[in-house]
């Protein structure tokens, strides 16, 4: 049953050092505010899962909070590579993280299997590709009906999944609109879930086929306007492309990165996100 609470409370109650956690969002609705709160609370030794780890996972990795990363595409979309991730993988700074690498199809199917309570996912994938050679969690199964060999990967079942959404009603039902990514599956696959929303409303004013997570399927809901910035919330504010471009320079240097993290994350609060999107709201 969804409980309304502050983001610091929700993170403290639902994310612990050593957990497997997903902060999902496919370019859209990436839960930056939740990730920043987790970094502030100093959680360590995380196994982070996401299809498309980008800027916010670069921040987790650069702060030394990550033990292992499970992913399928790690980049700064449209800008380039993740420099903190590269520094970890190439130079071991601040620690060398363990990598479990898949394709998008594999992670999407693995979340679905997790949501469906199945132990693994089967799909037609990885043919001729080399990832199976470096990732022991990519195996194969034979179809019992046709004999076709299919790829198999274990279900993803995070201890906790974090997502951001447009709005929730007063009963805790959550509406996700636009590019919905894999967020519904990530929440339903996880033991616990924290949803930040732009606003709480009396009525979701939605249509019958919208992506709604019923309140009873969610653990915690927190109101954090702008909580996806510099990602975007369809209908509320656009993607802050300039911030993604700026990140490339910030992350290129260890000291610049650490100074930026102190100013914008460690010394900040969830409330700061509302200010970060003011200029975007007026531009849209």
């Amino acid at each position, binding site marked *: 049953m969804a409980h309304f609470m502050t983001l610091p409370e929700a993170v403290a109650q639902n994310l612990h050092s050593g957990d497997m956690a997903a902060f999902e969002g*496919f*370019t*859209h609705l990436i839960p930056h505010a939740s990730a920043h709160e987790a970094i502030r609370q100093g959680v360590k030794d995380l196994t982070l899962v996401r299809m*498309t780890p980008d*800027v916010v996972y670069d921040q987790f990795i650069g702060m030394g909070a990550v033990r292992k990363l499970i992913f*399928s*595409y*790690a*980049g700064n*979309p*449209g800008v380039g*590579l*993740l420099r903190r*991730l590269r520094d970890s*993988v*190439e130079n071991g700074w601040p620690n060398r993280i363990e990598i479990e*690498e898949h*394709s*998008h*199809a594999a992670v*999407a*199917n693995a979340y679905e299997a997790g949501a469906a309570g199945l132990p693994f996912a089967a*799909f*037609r*994938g*990885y*043919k*001729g*590709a080399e*990832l199976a050679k470096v990732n022991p969690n990519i195996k194969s199964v034979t179809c019992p009906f046709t004999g*076709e*060999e299919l790829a198999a990967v274990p279900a993803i079942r995070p201890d906790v999944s974090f997502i951001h959404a447009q709005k929730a009603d007063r009963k805790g039902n959550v509406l996700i609109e*636009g*590019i*919905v*990514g*894999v967020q*519904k*599956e990530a929440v339903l696959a996880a033991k616990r879930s924290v949803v930040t929303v732009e606003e709480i409303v009396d009525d979701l004013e939605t249509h019958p086929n919208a*992506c709604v997570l019923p309140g009873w399927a969610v653990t915690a809901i927190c109101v954090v306007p702008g909580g996806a*910035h*510099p990602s*975007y919330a*369809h209908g509320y504010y*656009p*993607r*802050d*492309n*300039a*911030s*993604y*471009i*700026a*990140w490339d320079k*910030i992350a290129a240097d260890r000291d610049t990165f650490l100074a930026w993290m102190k100013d*914008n994350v460690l010394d900040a609060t969830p409330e*700061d996100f509302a200010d*970060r999107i003011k200029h*975007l709201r007026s*531009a849209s």
Partner: protein
Amino acid sequence: MSGTDFTSTEMMTIAASRALKNTDVCFVGIGAPSAACNIARLTHAPDVTLIYESGTIGTAPTVLPLSIGDGELCDTAVTTVSVPEMFRYWLQGGRVTVGFLGAAQIDRFGNINTTVIGDYDHPKTRLPGGGGAPEIASSCGEIFITMKQSKRAMVEKIDFFTSFGHGEGGDHRQRLGITTKGPTLMVTDLAVWKPDPVTREFTVVSLHPGVTREMVQAECGWTVRFADALDETPEPTGIELKTLRDLNTRTKAAHSGGKTGEAA
């Protein structure tokens, strides 16, 4: 009008765009492929169906997206589905005729590396990884590739097989049980390449205007084969160039808009 004043990148994008048909359903990679696919839509193929892996089907953006999931893609799409649905029903279901990809590294058989340069466990450069490409390469009806040529990118042997092209050539795809055609076209900033029908090695079939065989070889890490009947790629038309430049101008304005955010 003949567009005599154009860059090699413009020639590449326009030549690549010509490969798409109005009836194609195309899974679009970000970057150079995205530009080519949208030029096709804005010129000779207005009804081409463009699909981005973020879930947008039949999208028609007025500017090129910076990321694979920009809001513009969703706003202009016929429908937007979840990412699991995209990969299960639409891609794996065999409903996509063309996958349009770029590459960090490629070999003569169209095998693509976007994972690492160097050894996987101790890479010289850690690249973003495969994303959707491993399954795009095997599930789309055929694969078009577009990229700028360089000896670093076009190599004798790729460091990692992210996406399987024609493997070691010949019938390697069939032997692995892959039923789709694989790479059938590569358009670079210098030439148009097609696989040899038997060996599947990419062969230059057309040189862009002003390009020589020596220029193609100088930017390629393997010994290039040229078709017996070597064509010259038709120059960009006035309308093609205008469409591309207008799109680039709109895109630049859109992505530099607003002040630089302080937080990322």
